[in-house]
């Protein structure tokens, strides 16, 4: 038979475990919310110092420039709030050539948006667009 003190010890242990779990989950939730990468407009990106921004916009085709010596791709990207020069240091995605809409990940540095990752939202003929 359990004595009273043992029972109390058990309850104490359970309460402690529950408290630790709640604290840990609160920590996780805080970490995710506080450090997740925000989607921002060009104007917001210009005003921000963070380096984990996601900016979606249209590539201005005439401005695309491939610097072969430094392995960078630069282009101007615009959305309804403005235009920013993007310097991309990664390997261009496969479907970059046809893409108009891209999401650039990175942050502002010396007046340009420095990015090492680009997601392409391409109008592919394989995805049917229409859907009622």
């Amino acid at each position, binding site marked *: 038979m359990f004595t009273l003190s043992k029972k109390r010890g058990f309850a104490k242990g359970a309460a402690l*475990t529950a408290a630790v*779990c709640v604290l840990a989950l609160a920590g*996780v939730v805080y970490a*995710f919310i506080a450090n997740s990468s*925000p*989607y921002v407009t060009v104007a917001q990106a210009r005003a921000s110092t963070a380096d984990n921004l996601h900016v979606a916009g249209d590539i201005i085709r005439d401005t695309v420039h*491939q610097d072969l010596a430094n392995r960078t791709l630069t282009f101007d990207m615009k959305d309804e709030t403005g235009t920013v020069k993007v310097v991309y240091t990664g390997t261009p995605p496969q479907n970059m*050539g046809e893409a108009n809409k891209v999401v650039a990940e990175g942050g502002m540095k010396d007046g340009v948006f420095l990015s090492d990752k680009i997601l392409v939202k391409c109008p592919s003929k394989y995805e049917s667009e229409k859907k009622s």
Partner: protein
Amino acid sequence: MDQQTLVNNGFHAAPSWAMGVGQLGAVLVLVGVLLFLTSIVSMALGQRAQTLGKWTFAVGCVCVIGAMAALVSLFLSDQFQFEYVANHSWRNLAGMYKVAAVWSGQQGSFLLWATTSAVFGLLAVWRTGPYQRWFVFVYALFLGCLCGILAYETPFSLLNEISAGDLHISLLLNGIHFAPPDGMGLTPSLQNYWVVVHPPTIFTGFGSLTVPFAFAVSALLTGDAVAWISRVRPWALVSLSILGLGLVMGGLWAYETQGWGGFWAWDPVENVSFVPWLFVVAFIHGIIVQTTRKRWHGTNMLLGGLPFLLFVYGTFLTRSGFLSKFSVHSFAEMNRSALWILMVFLGIMVLGFMILWAMRGPRLGRQNDVPLRREGFNRERGYQFGVLLITGLSTAIAFGMSVPFFVGLFGGAGKVVDEPLYHSVVVWFYIPIMLLVGFVPFLSWRKQEPGTFWMRAINIVGLAIGVLGLVMIQFKVSDYAFHSAPLPPIDFPFGIHVSRFAWVMCLFGVTAFAGIGNLWRLVEMLPKSPSGVGGFVAHLGLAIAMAGLILSRGLEQKAQILVADREPGSGLGYKLTYEGLTSQPQTDRDNKVEFDVQTTFGQKEDFQARPGFFYVPGDDGSDQAFTWPHIQRVLSHDVYLSLASPITTLWDHPPTLRVGETKEDNGVLVKYLGLVRRGEPGKDGTSFGARIQVTENGTTFPVVEPKIVIGGNPDLVRASPNFLASLEGINPADDSVQIQLHFVRTIYPIELFYKPMTMLVWIGTGILTLGGLLSAFYRRYRRRLPEPEDVEKEDAPLPAIES
């Protein structure tokens, strides 16, 4: 448009059998809804109608499978009069990719989920014993909802008209339905053998999750929290191994075809399958405690139900369109009615299950649990911590993938969780989990001899430190040291930065500890109980695979290299020389670009790299390049060579030059001197020539004149050693022209990765699978009850329960 014009354009009357098969598929889905509804009602009525309920359920499952068979046959016989077939397949697709195309779209993947669930329902329903009534009730409710979703989200709808520009052409003429000559095709990135095997495997895993859920609900409703465990155990092990295999396949697919050099990107779609799997892992450990210690009856009913609920939640999250902006996977938007069915089902199931469990779970647990007789840290405590950590990890990932949804729900701007953030959260669960995996197998269920335990623990820690030291020396003196450039540090909270090598070695050390502990235990137990070592084998495999993932991603090196014919490129100690293409034209999907790779220092390992590369004609006339990476596997590392779209022109978009103007790019100058016209303007045959002069490396070459002929294509003129020039456009108003310079020798941009110890991922997942199979075989359901094998053989059998 009349019939003849359609026929002249390659359209043909759809064969009547195929129209019949399509209708049959659609009807089977609707019949399924009715049968499942009947089944639900009969089961709700109780014992009297149970036979009816069981059989309508079974026939309903057969209907779902039949609908899948109908869709597969439409794909295999190229029935492009069906919209879904036309959008996802075409005539020239190889047979196995036609099958892969069946689940390449939203509708098909819902049907696949329904089919695998129906197969498991059909297999499991006969051995549900006293749980049958509620098992069938829950299962039929789920499949009924899926059939309802499929009735709206149907893959069997006909293509009624096609559009060409503003023109809409009806395909139904004089009562005859016309089929277009060909479909849109399957996107080339999905034409890969992994797409043939990975989705069916992982969806089989998803389908299998319904069985433990239905059992858990039945156990709660019947109030028998004991007997269901031995019935559900084989199915839980099936879920664990098949879903695990599907996850592994997904990782290998990403690694072998996607070209970014990793196995796991923490994309929502990947997490949706990972989260339920982790809960299945927790459930399996709960089952072990219940069968050996007769405890955790309440907890297990919760753990059994959660994997399915989390998968349905994940499906809602990824398919509803909330995440489409934030995922590399693209989804068509779901039909509104179908989405409502999914949301209502999810809401009722989550709320219903949680309320039901809260009302009955803890009470049933108290009634059935044998009181814990030993205080202190025994093996059960270890399992308890382990299950808490695994469910915590899983909840954390589930929360991470929901961040865009929650933030959006509360009106915030879009936010996503990137790979580094996942890593920095997950690691706080990973380290304690691996420590537990390493030492809990040595703890006794009952009485713990502290002396022997600590002795062995110290031995294993010592061995792990030894292995860690050997690995560190290996990384410092071997080829890796030659290849390595300074690695970026790892950021921790509060502005702390830690050397990447040190941190990766910490994680490796913890993983080695887990692996060695289980290897030790495996060797100890093999002579005593060879059939009971599946768990140790699985843990060993897990540790080896994790070691491979940690080392190959954490210590990876990469370099960007440009290679062209007769212009080799170098990086990471490799020299790449272009050798040639294997086929012409370059639209051949088997085309490979061959490079000779020579090591410039370290151990010699020359090889030929053959990444795949081909063009697919795009909609607007421009070609889109597709590539496959080349992976050179060596025992100690992988050389991963990812080819990007070849660079053929100097400018992405031809620049406009006015007369006398000069443009410069990458050290190349083009001067436009003037326009030359031959013939009458606006007439066919009239040609224009732009007089241009190219300066390369400080040398100016003679003036050339690329021409454009009205009604013809622009010609290419050699303008300098490295460039051909073409005239792409003219503006007659001011004689300005658009000039493009083409590289004589195409430039191949290559991203080269050096990934140490990737081989461990393959070895580890192999061992993990073997361990899972061993356990599943040992723990298969046998009718003999009570089951003596329930008691862990490795330990003294549990004595008769003393009260």
